[in-house]
């Protein structure tokens, strides 16, 4: 469920990066003031633990599928929200850099989706009240399952929002939500059960961990501000990308959606109309692309152009000239890149 670069517009990716960077700076400054350098190696080692644990799968009985620990919630429980947020961010950074899970621009989104929700929302507002001060086994179980499910639902919803507001994918909001949320309900249940069993195990083996680790006598005043800021960033990100997306392409698509026609011959709606008028204007300069061949010789290109010419009224935005030159140009670019790479490789191997 990592967000991917390819589905992201820079406006959305940038604003999510801004939100995550703000949270990272805030968490770092909180850690600096808490001045407990015992936690520095603990954070690093626990992040490495989560990284390793994510690669170990167990079989889910009766389904044939497998599950593993996600890690956000257990880090929040063991380290407190701020340190956990940094730890998750570091795990995600390693995954993005070495395994291309997500990507560099999408890293901001991923830190927000997988870090902010479990650390700053689910842990303090769901897990803590449910688990209470001296958690019993049952309370730990319920608290971690509910918190994990909630965290993953929010994360998945974040992915949907970011994808839809980027406008690169055509998947409409409603179907994407219907696709993502149930899948992540299942994943969240597994995550919750695993976190719960681990916490119960730890609670038996090291009860002192649960009282001692979190120096959370924090003044609560800043948290709502930060959350507000982050949400504002999300809204702004969504808004910005909406404007960025309202070039003719995005508009055309939404107009097409509204009119409900995806048929090929739909010259009336949206951009087709404007393109149609454009076509009419261009038609005053006949054969814009192939001036000379149309007058005189029939080159190969002009021959292919002739066919759509007749159907120009049905498909006003179709132009064989653009198609052909686009394809040719793409092919030539590839060849150029290949030749350049070959030459460079020969030079570097020649030197070595």
């Amino acid at each position, binding site marked *: 469920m990592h967000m991917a670069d390819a589905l992201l517009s820079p406006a959305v990716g940038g604003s999510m990066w801004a939100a995550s960077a703000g949270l990272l700076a805030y968490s770092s400054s909180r850690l600096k003031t808490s001045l407990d350098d015992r936690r520095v190696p603990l954070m690093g080692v626990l992040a490495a633990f989560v990284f390793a644990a994510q690669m170990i799968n*167990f079989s889910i009985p009766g389904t044939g599928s497998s599950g593993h620990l996600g890690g956000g919630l257990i880090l929040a429980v063991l380290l407190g929200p701020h340190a956990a947020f940094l730890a998750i961010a570091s795990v995600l950074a390693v995954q993005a850099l070495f395994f291309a899970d997500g990507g*560099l621009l999408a890293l901001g989104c991923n830190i927000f989706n997988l870090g902010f929700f479990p650390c700053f929302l689910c842990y303090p507002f769901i897990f803590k009240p449910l688990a209470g001060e001296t958690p019993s086994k049952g309370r730990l179980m319920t608290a971690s399952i509910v918190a994990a499910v909630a965290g993953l639902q929010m994360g998945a919803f974040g992915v949907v929002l970011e994808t839809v507001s980027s*406008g690169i994918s055509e998947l409409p909001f409603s179907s994407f939500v219907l696709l993502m949320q149930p899948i992540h309900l299942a994943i969240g249940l597994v995550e919750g059960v695993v976190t719960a069993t681990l916490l119960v195990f730890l609670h038996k083996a090291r009860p002192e961990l649960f009282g001692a680790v979190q120096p959370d006598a924090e003044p609560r005043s800043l948290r709502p501000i930060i959350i507000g800021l982050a949400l504002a960033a999300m809204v702004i990100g969504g808004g910005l990308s909406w404007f960025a997306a309202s070039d003719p392409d995005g508009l055309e698509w939404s107009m097409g959606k509204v009119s409900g026609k995806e048929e*090929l011959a739909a010259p009336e709606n949206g951009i087709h109309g404007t393109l149609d008028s454009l076509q009419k204007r261009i038609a005053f300069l006949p054969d814009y692309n192939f001036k000379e061949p149309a007058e005189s010789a029939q080159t190969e290109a002009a021959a292919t152009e002739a066919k759509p010419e007749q159907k120009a009224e049905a498909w006003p935005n179709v132009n064989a000239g653009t*198609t052909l030159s686009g394809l040719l140009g793409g092919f030539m*670019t590839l060849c150029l890149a290949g030749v350049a790479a070959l030459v460079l490789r020969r030079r570097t191997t020649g030197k070595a």
Partner: protein
Amino acid sequence: MGLDTALHEIRRLDDLAAQDTALHRLDARAKVLVTLAYLVSMLSLGRYEVSRLLPFAAFPLLLAVQGGVPLGLLLRRAALALPFVVFVGIFNPLIDRNVHLTLGPLVITGGMLSFTSIVLRSLLAVTTGLVLVAVTGFDQVCRALGRLGMPTALLVQLQFLYRYLFVLADEALRMLHARVQRCAKNSRPSLHEYRALLGNLLLRTLDRAGRVHQAMLCRGFDGTMPDLRPTSRFGLAEWRFCAIWGLFLLAVRILNIPQHLGDLPLYLAAKAGGLFPGVLK
């Protein structure tokens, strides 16, 4: 991906980053900044752009060749990252059926274009990220980010994670091997076994954190990790690297180079047809 393959992949990239080429010697900040500029300018292209994405391939390709990164490795990794992207993008051809281009009987719809665009974007973004690590090294990327203003706490956290990742993953692998040898089957553990495995790994992790902290205090840990390499400067070579790639990015972002290239033969053919009107008839 299994734990051992994951470790292997990380070490593979580490080995590549340990090479000594002109590109490796460049200050990491230059490479990080240009990579970010690359991602923003590439991903900001419209969603129907396919041919305009192609010139962007020059950046990872040239860097890979210059830095001695095998292209096969990059492509294999890039393919691994595709499933989620394809899963989300595969709906584009089904939903968007407006015809954008035709070539004889071949009809290309907007959905086909945008799907191809998504796949291309993914390949380019992934290979570029991997090339950055392979020609810079994780530690240097982190230090570069630190010098560009990333908070120290996060920098130390990243360095710690990277240091102990191998230690803990080895520990986990030893436990998994021990389990396989004792129960004589190489199936996935049940939830019960999993809890015992991970729980013990977690306990050992916590103990190790305590020992590491003691050792660090003995060696005079002051909140930052010492850099073993000499600190590099943002010198002439770095400025040149940024300038050249910056101009390149500007050019391919603004100009439609494939279109111009493709227009050229058509233009020439048209010229030829115009000059010798009878020849081609």
